């Protein structure tokens, strides 16, 4: 199979996969409390359907999607809703946001699942609705509502290729790797459902060449399954080859135009964990209430992959992995490259949490003091989007945002390759995030002021119109009076005003 190469990337990043990938997936216990941030996906926050004190069952919908780009949330175990209040959420900002908290009863009573007997008999719309109702979002980290991606009905697109993203390019993370090793059959079934829904002609399961055993396992499952249009594709291990745009380039040679989605060039790319969730939703009737997450790093005693109920606080998960080791320094959600630090370990696992990295001091990328940029250009040769990070840095530092936009800042995927190769240790991605948000704020303000100006101008024209109308009315009135008794009118008016004057002076003398 022919493969293509995207620009740059980091081919020799230390992988750290073995720490967690050698142990089989194990189910984490039911925690005493489950916490569900209402927004754990891209788009609108979900609307709660339960009240404090209400009893809930496993698989029961506790919050519903609000609008098309949104996703419902389901309880992962039975219990009682404790409250709906602001709690710390797993987000780089460290902000609090509304969360539903459930006190579990340990019984784990479930709603009776309603699987579809044969998905081929169902209408495609029905399948899309099932995926939407199951609350499935991209489990690779982006958490984009999957039903939106699969909806080939409202906007008809000619989808040719389905890509199952099993390229876990971030160091340390191995949850997709374990999933493919242990549950390849279900993933392949899920791929068949997706092929049916999208009408795609081919499907690739992308696996990095640092995981030959996983590739073998998938090959074997494919052989048993005898589906000739789903193929396993071994791709070179170059960070960030698992990035959607980079993976599409690697497998098809095509590039997604800026600001566009892959579907418009005939490609849908979905993380293998998400495919598994789709299969579970349609063939088992189970909504998304758990996911596989990697707990790893030198700071945890037994790094491993865990099937964890969404909403489980991280400390429960760490306990399950035999607790912290004495070298723990920082908690990171996601990988070391694109993950973010967490404020404490009471924060829950959400749908997008693919990894909890309990980093030791050595593992935390030490914050060396940034030196001036010497324009060496290593960042440009490492940039998988083929940008010029050094020039972006230069202009974003001096707030020259039009220049930064001209250099295509918004094509930056924030993968962090430039940070890693920079000999001056400049935190480039931080500067780019800053510039991006500053530009967004500026555009918003511009929009606001345009609206204000339009409103002001509308008011001005309205006032002018009113004035003209008034003038017109009085002109007409005058014209009507001109008929004869204008002088009498004037005399009467003078008399009236004189009377008024006398009256008021009389009142003041009183």
């Amino acid at each position, binding site marked *: 199979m022919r493969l293509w190469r*995207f*620009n740059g990337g980091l081919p020799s990043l230390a992988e750290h996969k073995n720490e967690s990938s050698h142990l089989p997936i194990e189910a984490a216990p039911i925690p005493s409390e489950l916490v569900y941030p209402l927004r754990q996906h891209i788009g609108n926050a979900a609307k709660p359907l339960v009240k404090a004190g209400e009893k809930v069952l496993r698989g029961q919908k506790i919050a519903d999607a609000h609008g098309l780009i949104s996703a419902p949330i389901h309880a992962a175990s039975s219990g009682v809703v404790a409250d709906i209040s602001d709690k710390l959420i797993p987000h780089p900002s460290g902000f609090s946001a509304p969360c539903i908290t459930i006190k579990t009863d340990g019984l784990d009573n479930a709603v009776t699942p309603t699987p579809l007997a044969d998905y081929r008999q169902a209408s495609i719309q029905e399948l899309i609705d099932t995926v939407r109702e199951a609350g499935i979002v991209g489990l690779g980290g982006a958490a984009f509502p999957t039903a939106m991606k699969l909806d080939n009905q409202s906007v008809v697109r000619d989808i040719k290729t389905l890509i199952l993203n099993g390229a876990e390019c971030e160091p340390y993370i191995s949850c997709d790797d374990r999933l493919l090793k242990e549950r390849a059959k279900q993933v392949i079934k899920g791929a068949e459902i997706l092929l049916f829904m999208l009408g795609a002609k081919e499907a690739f399961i992308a696996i990095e060449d640092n995981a030959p055993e996983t590739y073998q396992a998938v090959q074997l499952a494919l052989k048993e399954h005898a589906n000739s249009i789903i193929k396993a594709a071994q791709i070179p291990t170059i960070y960030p080859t698992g990035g959607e*745009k980079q993976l599409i*380039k690697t497998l098809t040679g095509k*590039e*997604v*135009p*800026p600001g*566009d989605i892959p579907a418009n060039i005939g490609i849908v790319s979905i993380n293998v964990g998400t495919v598994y969730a789709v299969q579970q939703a349609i063939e088992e009737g189970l909504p998304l209430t758990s996911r596989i997450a990697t707990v790893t790093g030198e700071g945890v005693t037994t790094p491993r992959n865990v099937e964890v109920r969404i909403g489980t606080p991280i400390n429960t998960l760490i306990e399950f992995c035999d607790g912290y080791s004495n070298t723990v320094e920082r908690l990171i959600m996601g990988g070391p490259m694109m993950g973010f630090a967490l404020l404490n370990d009471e924060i829950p696992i959400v749908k997008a949490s693919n990894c909890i990295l309990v980093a030791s001091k050595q593992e935390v990328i030490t914050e060396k*003091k940034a*030196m*001036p*940029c*010497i*324009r*060496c*250009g290593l960042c*440009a*040769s490492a940039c*998988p*989007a*083929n*940008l*010029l990070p*050094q*020039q972006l840095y230069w202009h974003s530092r001096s707030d020259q945002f039009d220049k930064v936009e001209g*250099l*295509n800042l918004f*094509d930056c995927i924030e993968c962090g390759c430039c940070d890693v190769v920079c*000999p*001056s240790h400049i935190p480039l991605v931080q500067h780019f995030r800053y510039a991006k948000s500053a530009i967004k704020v500026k555009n918003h303000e511009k929009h606001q002021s345009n609206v204000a100006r339009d409103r002001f101008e509308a008011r001005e024209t309205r006032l002018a119109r009113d004035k003209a109308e008034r003038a017109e009315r009085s002109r007409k009135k005058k014209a009507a009076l001109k008929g004869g008794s204008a002088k009498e009118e004037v005399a009467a008016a003078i008399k009236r005003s004189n009377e008024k004057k006398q009256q008021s002076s009389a009142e003041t003398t009183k």
Partner: protein
Amino acid sequence: MMLWVLMALLPGILVMCWQFGYGVFFNIVIAVSTALLAEACMLHLRGRPIAPFITDLSVVVTAVLLALSLPTLAPWWIPFIGAIIAVVFAKHLYGGLGYNPFNPAMVAFAVLMVSFPKDMTVWALPSSLQTNELGLANALAVLIDQLPSQELIDGFTAATPLDHMKTRLGLNEVIGEIRTAPLFGSWVVAGWEWVAIAYLCGGVFLIYKKVISWQIPTGLLAGLFSISFLFYLLDPSTSPSPLFHLLGGGTILAAFFIATDPVTASTTNKGRIIYAALIGALIYVIRTWGGYPDGVAFAVILINMAVPLIDHYTQPRVYGHKK
């Protein structure tokens, strides 16, 4: 990174010492110590931390490159003034490391060349051609500006081959005649050819270590080669061979060590080739029709000015964008 550059310069420095005597070593010592002192003073005045900026060795590289471009028999104040100009004027007054638009070593060289033309054009003869041995005593004497007798000096100094070539071509002599002078030796240019080859080895090592990109040396050498080859084809009797241009003067040092200064070079891959090829062409233009025997410093400075323009027009195609 800068340590690799210094190590890569080592073979060239040793060959230069062997060919041209102790002067090279004196130049380096004076330039480096002055530059370090100037750097520390400037950092202090500007309220910047001194240690990280000194230990990154970039100032040492600047000073060594300057020292290697200077005549090997210069009085002590030549490298001294040069280092101060490089560090204070060409670097810190523009904002320090990373902000200087012009190559500091070349700015210093150009200033010295314009201000002290006599001291800047007297080079030691290669050791094989010296009729009076230069020796440590004489080198020291020159250094402290106590010139020995003119007769003695003539025994170990001369104009550079480039200078000689230029002067003689100006007198309407043809290459064949000019090249009979002992200065040119039996191959390309006596002494210089070995220095150039030593620098070449160091430069290739740097490309191998990925400290410098291949685009700049290749572009510069290709630019200089193609234009000199063209004129050589047109008239070999008045145009020196391309090999003379490549191995004579400061070409190799410029290609691998001077033009590759990241701060003042173009940053895009395509831009680097254009930037370097322009320097190569300009070196030829200055050597042939300009007022100075070698054109490296002026060529580098002039093309440094064009870098923002080159960068602007050579941006790579961003992922997903059409050309």
